[in-house]
């Protein structure tokens, strides 16, 4: 972990973007083109929620979404409840920095028993010629029995040097269910710090899937509180990095009470001199009996220079628990390679298929079919060396369009 001072020194190089006063339809900047995927888009540009003088949208079923700045005035109790679900000691220095300096973010409120069919999609675009510092805070509240999915996309459209420090807080009331998908495709000059805090009450189910295709430096940290019995958290992740890219995943799961379950499955393929880290920490607190917690991290290293630091860490203070952790780092399976070749597939393509298979296991946990198909396709292209940051957005179909960036940032 980097020290405070180095962050502060580093951060002084970056500028904050002022809030834009003129609204430009976000579709002009970006349009997600996943076929068959219908989402409620929550657009963020250079750290600001984009809206047309209407920062909060209220639906008939009571769902509210929009800018966190506006929500702080309109729904102070809910925002405060989410802010205080985690104690200060859980928050690292970047989260604290975010807390004091964030500009804006997304707010989503789903009332009791409302099941939102369309996924929400936060699309966070950075487009600036300046070295930009972006600090966003997203707050998501699910009432009792509420259900929703959220896709959070981080992309860059300029080759500037950016520093993104994003904190997302999720509060899940009892029986709520949430699927959270995180996709990242950033250019090599970017630094992205994502902090996700999930507070779960009883009988909740939280599912996350973090997919990193390209990264300058990315750190995804997830902290989960399983605070009441029968809460369940399932965290999946995939990172495909090459050159000098670096991607870290830090996970901390607190089993605070009895009968909760958690699972972590993270996989990575590393080429060239890429470095990845997986730090999975499970804490089974005293009295958290009948806990079941599993953790797996698997890596394939394609070169001698690629490096993975994996540190599974189990802290168990209860005695009736079922816990496991495992980490593997290796090459491709020879038996499978032989099987594929025995059907006429070249060694080269067999390797590619196996790498795809290895990665696709994570994609298979994506429950939105259109997103799963698209991500599967992106993994394939990434492994073929066809997907680069030049595709602008990993989710858009760069093959089928000419990308022109229509906004002149100086006019925003």
């Amino acid at each position: 972990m980097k020290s405070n001072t180095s962050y502060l020194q580093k951060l002084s190089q970056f500028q904050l973007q002022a809030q834009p006063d003129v609204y430009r339809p976000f579709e002009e900047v970006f349009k997600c083109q996943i076929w068959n995927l219908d989402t409620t888009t929550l657009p963020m540009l250079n750290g600001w929620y984009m809206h047309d003088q209407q920062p909060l949208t209220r639906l008939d079923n009571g769902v509210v979404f929009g800018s966190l700045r506006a929500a702080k005035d309109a729904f102070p109790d809910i925002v405060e409840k989410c802010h205080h679900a985690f104690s200060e000691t859980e928050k690292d220095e970047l989260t604290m920095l975010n807390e004091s300096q964030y500009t804006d973010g997304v707010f989503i409120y789903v009332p009791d028993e409302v099941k939102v069919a369309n996924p929400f999609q936060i699309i966070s675009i950075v487009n600036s010629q300046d070295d930009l510092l972006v600090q966003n805070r997203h707050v998501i509240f699910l009432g009792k029995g509420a259900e929703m999915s959220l896709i959070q996309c981080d992309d860059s459209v300029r080759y500037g040097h950016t520093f993104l420090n994003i904190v997302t807080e999720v509060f899940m009331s009892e029986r709520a269910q949430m699927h959270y998908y995180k996709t990242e495709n950033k250019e090599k000059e970017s630094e992205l710090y994502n902090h996700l805090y999930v507070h779960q009450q009883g009988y909740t189910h939280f599912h996350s899937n973090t997919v990193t295709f390209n990264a300058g430096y990315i750190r995804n940290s997830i902290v989960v509180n399983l605070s009441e019995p029968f809460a369940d958290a399932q965290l999946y992740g995939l990172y495909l990095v090459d050159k000098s890219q670096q991607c870290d995943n830090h996970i901390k799961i607190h089993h605070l009470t009895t009968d909760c379950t958690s699972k972590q499955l993270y996989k990575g393929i590393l080429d060239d001199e890429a470095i990845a880290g997986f730090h999975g920490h499970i804490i089974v607190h005293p009295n958290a009996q009948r806990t079941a917690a599993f953790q797996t991290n698997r890596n394939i290293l394609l070169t001698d220079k690629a490096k993975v630091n994996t540190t599974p860490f189990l802290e168990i203070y209860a005695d009736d628990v079922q816990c496991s952790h495992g980490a593997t780092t290796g090459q491709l399976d020879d038996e499978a390679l032989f099987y594929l070749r025995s059907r006429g597939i070249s060694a080269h393509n067999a390797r590619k298929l196996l790498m795809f298979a290895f990665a696709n296991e994570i994609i298979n946990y994506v429950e939105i079919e259109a997103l799963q198909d698209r991500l599967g396709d992106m993994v394939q292209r990434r492994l073929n060396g066809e997907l680069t940051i030049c595709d602008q957005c990993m989710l858009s179909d760069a093959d089928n369009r000419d990308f022109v960036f229509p906004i002149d940032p100086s006019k925003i």
Partner: protein
Amino acid sequence: MLKIENLHVSIKGREILKGVDLQINAGEVHAIMGPNGTGKSTLASVIAGKEGYEVTEGRIYYKGKDLLSLSIEDRAREGIFIGFQYPVEIPGVSIANFMRTALNEIREYRGLDPLNGAQFLRLMNEKQKVVELTDKLSNRSVNEGFSGGEKKRNEIFQMAMLEPTLSILDETDSGLDIDALRIVANGVNHLKTKDNATIVITHYQRLLDYIVPDVVHVLFDGKIVKSGTKELALELEKRGYDWIKEEYETAK
């Protein structure tokens, strides 16, 4: 089509095959029987090109070519298919993706245009019927979570897709219940033509009730010690392998 001459094969210095001679012509079905550990699967693995098997002596000619000089994938592209005893599970690779890659690489090798998506799906639907696989096979991962019977049916399905000239089915009957056995055997019979050949490796005669062989060979102690008609299989079923062993020892 296939001619094996005095084949000696070792694994880690231990000799498993000690001079196998075998000739198979187009249109024929051969059964290779024998007790466990006599080298039946080794023979299949050597023909497939699996690593770790050292050919110390002898030759294998396939369609007049020196088979042992071909890569694993080129053997398949030349029309050899092995139905494996223990098919590998490959989570994450869909059967459709696997077969499409294989088929198109084979077609490319033979100078044919690749199949497009629609043509491929039509072919898959047609061939699934051969082994009575009706569910959404195309999206399932290769062998992942398959029962023993499903794995073997999937092997025959692949055989149907790739239309090999020479198929070697290694213990395809092991672990199959009678219904699955019938389906697998029907599949094999359905695919039989006058231009292709099949080798069935088994140690039970029951599969041969369904797939009727032209020739039955007994492999023992790394050699083919006896060859005969399908009646030989029935005799083995009745009498076991002990008399073969005695005959072999006496002859030695």
